[in-house]
């Protein structure tokens, strides 16, 4: 099958490649671009480990073809840290609140939470839980992931994070 030339912006840098139409975006990112932070958990649109941010939308990159992302602006986990290389509020939240165990779901969780906080910088606990309902974690039981996002929300809003009483 003839290959198609695609160009897109990934974490601020222009990238290009030749892809078959059937190449999934997640495979293009991991194999062509060699950026393996975006994970493949299920490959069936269930787990959210492959979540990337495309033109301001959280998308499961295993359920979109690379040709469809031609011309788009993408953020992956590699583009989440602050410009000076320090941890972003979300990354710091996951570290401080112990929001990961094996870490397999973490790139998808953080990229999803990034868009969630852009759309709603002060989500309630229920809004956080609904907001990450497309991401599965098999380790943590979600409690500390929710806290990590609350920590990041507080930091973004310039207030001190108060852990809710258990």
């Amino acid at each position, binding site marked *: 099958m003839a290959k198609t030339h695609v160009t897109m912006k990934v974490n601020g840098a222009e990238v290009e490649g030749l892809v078959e139409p059937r190449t999934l975006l997640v495979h293009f990112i991991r194999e062509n671009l060699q950026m393996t932070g975006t994970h493949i958990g299920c490959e069936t649109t269930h787990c*959210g480990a492959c979540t990337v941010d495309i033109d301001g939308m959280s998308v*499961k990159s295993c359920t979109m073809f690379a040709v469809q992302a031609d011309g788009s602006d993408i953020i992956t986990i590699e583009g989440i840290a602050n410009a000076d290389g320090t941890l972003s509020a979300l990354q710091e939240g996951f570290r401080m609140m112990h929001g990961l165990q094996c870490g397999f779901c973490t790139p998808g969780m953080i990229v999803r939470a990034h868009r969630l906080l852009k759309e709603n910088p002060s989500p309630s606990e229920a809004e956080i839980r609904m907001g990450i309902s497309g991401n599965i974690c098999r380790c943590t039981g979600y409690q500390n992931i929710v806290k990590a996002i609350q920590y990041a929300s507080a930091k973004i809003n310039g207030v001190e994070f108060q852990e809710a009483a258990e």
Partner: protein
Amino acid sequence: MIPGSFSYHRPASVADAVKLLSDLGEEARPLAGGHSLVPMMKLRLATPAHLVDLHGIAALKGISRNGNNLIIGAMTTQHELLASDEVAKAMPILHEAALLIADPQVRYRGTIGGNVANGDPGNDMPALMMTLEATYRLEGPGGTRDVAAADFYQGAYFTALEPGEILTSVSVPVPAAGHGYAYEKLKRKVGDYATAAAAVVLTMSGGKVVTCAIGLTNVHETPLLAIDAAKAVIGTSLDAATLKKAAAAASAIMAPAADARGPVEYRKHVGGIMVTRALQRAAAIAK
């Protein structure tokens, strides 16, 4: 999981899309949000030789008001429906139901056109569109026609769409001011299809039901209108005996498949409960 090979087309107009689909014939499939088709292609349960991606067609996007109807472009995503103040105000049941579809990531991509046109009995919008008396605009090589949602579904994945036709927009009459509404969906987890779901839109006056429509999701090979159940509640105050009668009338037309969501009897039973709950909640909201 890698789909079979295909050629990718991205037309910029409905006319070009229709021409491509009719020229390429059965080997071509239109691609909307892709969250039903792409998973099928990865499993090689669908192996189209050509995909006609509708994302390049600006005319298929957006929500507008035309007299008493909301016109929703087929490529409008569930996320965009949820973000629309017009939908939230004029047709809150649409907002409520969209929020119960899949998960946030899927809603950024999944479209109303794909949801209603695919003919999947598990999809939530078809029964809702029947309840709201929506019509679908279909454009094909033979021209444009409007088909009532209630006449569109003929079997599982089998609809009134002719070869080469695409569904371009959905027209939904805005329900009367003060109407009551509810979409009750029982599902095992976020992202699952309904074990059973019921949509209710009704109006009340002096504590009695004046008009009522009830739609049912995933309890038959097509979405259903529960006409007898809706008739049974007209003129009543939805007392316990009436609710029981309505649930029984709705269950009587259900013919769900036995699957991981439960045996037939269970799905019919909870289908009746969804009808009862939706009626009660709709009545409580109605003014």
